């Protein structure tokens, strides 16, 4: 997030795109509702009529996968009606002309034809967002999990820059991070192309600093992304995977393909707190400790680095993950002699400019938001205050592209996937909590009433859902939150894993799979 969660109270307009906030980020969702009760205007744009839509002044329901079209449409209206922030555009951005040229054809009518959003509603939304000097934008996986994910993110940034809703309180471009520590895992360089704090691998000086501290020469070539590692394993090029605290056999797209790939590995090491679907396939399973059993830090979606503190001992002979990694490194002849996570943080802050001022002592009860460049720095509530870190903010002129797989005769429904309010990700933790399991015990598919009638099924009946990659059986849940032709499945459940169906086609830049769109067939079963 460029801004902070507390900014929600300062925003006059809140725009929520592709985020089922009240269910996936409940505490942020409730802050948005509070802001609305205090007079903020809310615009919700989502193919599913999510609960937050009931609080919205304007709700737009685009077809799944048409984000760039309506985002360009909003930009079109803002430019055409001359309600942009010309000072901001002149002082802080570049490439404006290119954007103007690109969005020219995205008239409200043209956008309506692609997305199904009524032209008048699009115009109203554009005006409401652009005419506010404190408009805050939130988005989530409904923007990123597409083969056009990078384009979607860029066109979101276009809107904020066009209207000057960036670099001040109550504004910003605010992606909501799904997992508790996705932000931190990225910050720590658990990515194939960057070291900690987004220092690029190609940057010789940065690499050199790490080499000095780590006393070893580092590889400079960009590594494989997660989806590439799976395809390389399938081709027999990757021989070993070491997986810590993830369950790709539920969470990754096209699961049959993932399983085949894992079967080809010579060595699969899994470090986890439960014997997950993935761990069951492993050659070696190393028992880790859960959050309650260790010290450390997590970084939340607003860049707040916060303490995790040990309240209990690891189970049996299980160990904290940092101890396991250190012990293994030592066994392989590389000394890692850390006595505590605090010592590891000292090394992180030495090597990472945005974490330099962070110490356990300073984090205390409230944490600190990075960038925090030195020990007297209070942390950063919002980014891009007077300038962008890269100089000028660049407008990206991108054209709408269709998702890779759309419904056809054989697979006539568009399936989109996500989470429910009560289960979490692969449900490894939440299926072991009684109240959560009571609310959401098993997998289901949400279908519009008309579609259900046409298929000949009723609420609670079992159906077989298949795509060209796999099939699952689950029960029907009738909903009026989806238009005809579009269906939704949560991906949490191993017994009816939605990811047996999903497409593993990825965005060319961000390598995010297209979880949000694939084509399926549905039929009733006995």
């Amino acid at each position, binding site marked *: 997030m460029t801004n902070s*969660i507390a900014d929600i109270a300062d925003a006059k307009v809140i725009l929520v795109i592709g985020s089922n906030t009240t269910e996936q*980020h*409940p505490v*942020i969702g409730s802050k948005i509702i509070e802001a609305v009760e205090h007079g903020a205007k809310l615009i919700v744009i989502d193919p599913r009529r999510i609960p937050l839509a009931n609080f919205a002044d304007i709700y737009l329901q685009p077809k799944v996968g048409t984000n760039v079209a309506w985002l360009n449409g909003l930009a079109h209206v803002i430019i055409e009606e001359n309600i942009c922030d010309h000072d901001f555009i002149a002082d802080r951005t570049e490439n404006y002309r290119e954007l103007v040229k690109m969005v020219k054809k995205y008239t409200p009518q043209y956008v309506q034809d692609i997305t199904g959003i009524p032209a008048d509603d699009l115009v109203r939304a554009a005006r409401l967002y652009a005419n506010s000097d404190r408009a805050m934008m939130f988005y989530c996986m409904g923007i990123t999990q597409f083969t056009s994910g990078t384009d979607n993110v860029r066109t979101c940034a276009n809107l904020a820059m066009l209207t000057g809703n960036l670099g001040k309180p109550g504004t910003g471009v605010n992606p*909501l*991070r799904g997992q*508790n520590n*996705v932000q*931190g*895992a*990225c*910050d*720590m360089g*658990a990515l*194939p192309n960057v070291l900690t704090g987004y220092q690029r691998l190609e940057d010789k000086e940065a690499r050199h600093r*790490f080499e000095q501290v780590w006393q070893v020469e*580092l590889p400079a070539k960009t*590594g*494989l992304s997660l989806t590439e*590692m799976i395809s390389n*394993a399938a081709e027999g090029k990757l*021989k070993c*995977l070491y997986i810590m*605290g*993830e369950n790709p056999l539920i969470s990754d797209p096209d699961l049959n393909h993932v399983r085949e790939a894992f079967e080809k590995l010579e*060595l699969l090491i899994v470090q986890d707190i*439960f014997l997950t679907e993935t761990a*069951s396939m*492993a050659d*070696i*399973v190393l028992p880790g400790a859960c*959050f309650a059993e260790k010290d*450390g830090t997590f970084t*939340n979606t*607003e860049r*707040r680095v*916060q*303490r*995790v*503190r*040990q309240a*209990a001992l690891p*189970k*049996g*002979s299980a*160990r904290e993950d*940092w101890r*396991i*990694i250190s*012990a*293994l490194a030592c*066994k392989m002849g590389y000394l890692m002699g850390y006595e505590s996570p605090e010592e590891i943080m000292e090394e992180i802050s030495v090597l990472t400019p945005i974490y330099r001022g962070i110490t356990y002592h300073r984090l205390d*009860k409230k*944490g600190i938001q990075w960038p925090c460049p030195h020990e007297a720095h209070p942390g950063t509530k919002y980014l891009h205050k007077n300038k962008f870190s890269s100089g000028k903010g660049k407008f990206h002129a991108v054209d709408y592209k269709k998702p890779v797989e759309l419904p056809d005769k054989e697979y006539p429904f568009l399936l989109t996937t996500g989470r429910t309010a009560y289960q979490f990700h692969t449900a490894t*933790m*939440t299926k*072991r909590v*009684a*109240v959560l399991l009571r609310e959401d015990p098993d997998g289901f598919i949400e279908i519009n009433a008309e579609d259900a009638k046409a298929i000949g099924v009723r609420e609670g009946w079992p159906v077989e859902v298949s795509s060209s990659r796999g099939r699952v059986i689950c029960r029907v849940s009738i909903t009026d939150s989806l238009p005809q032709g579009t269906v939704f499945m949560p991906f949490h459940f191993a017994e009816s894993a939605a990811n047996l169906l999903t497409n593993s086609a990825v965005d060319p830049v961000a*390598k995010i799979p297209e979880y949000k769109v694939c084509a399926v067939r549905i039929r009733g079963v006995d």
Partner: protein
Amino acid sequence: MNEVLTTCPYCGCGCNFYLIADRDGEITGVIPSREHPVSQGKLCVKGWNVHEFVNSPDRLSRPLIKESGTLQEATWDEALKKTAAKLQEIIKKYGPDAVGFFSSAKCTNEENFLFAKFARAVVGTNNIDHCARL
């Protein structure tokens, strides 16, 4: 009774709460933190019930090694020795880029940092990623 302030392990909101541990060190409940800038005394249903999975009987408590198709309990020494030896064998035979790492958005910053350090400095590959995209 022991109260320990910590951060929720589920979503990116990053609410804080106190974990309540009884005298045997078993975690029995959760109390929200009023002072915390995000949660301000609130939590969602997942946060309120977080202690339940911690105490699940299914938790892994020993290293396991696959022997003729089934996972068998092992000591740490055996498991670590075997992991190190097999990793070294693969690196020697195919080079470091034949090894890949999935790090975790559930683990701490310190653990992600160490895992990335292990991949880059110990094994010698940049094949490391995590489920940011999933």
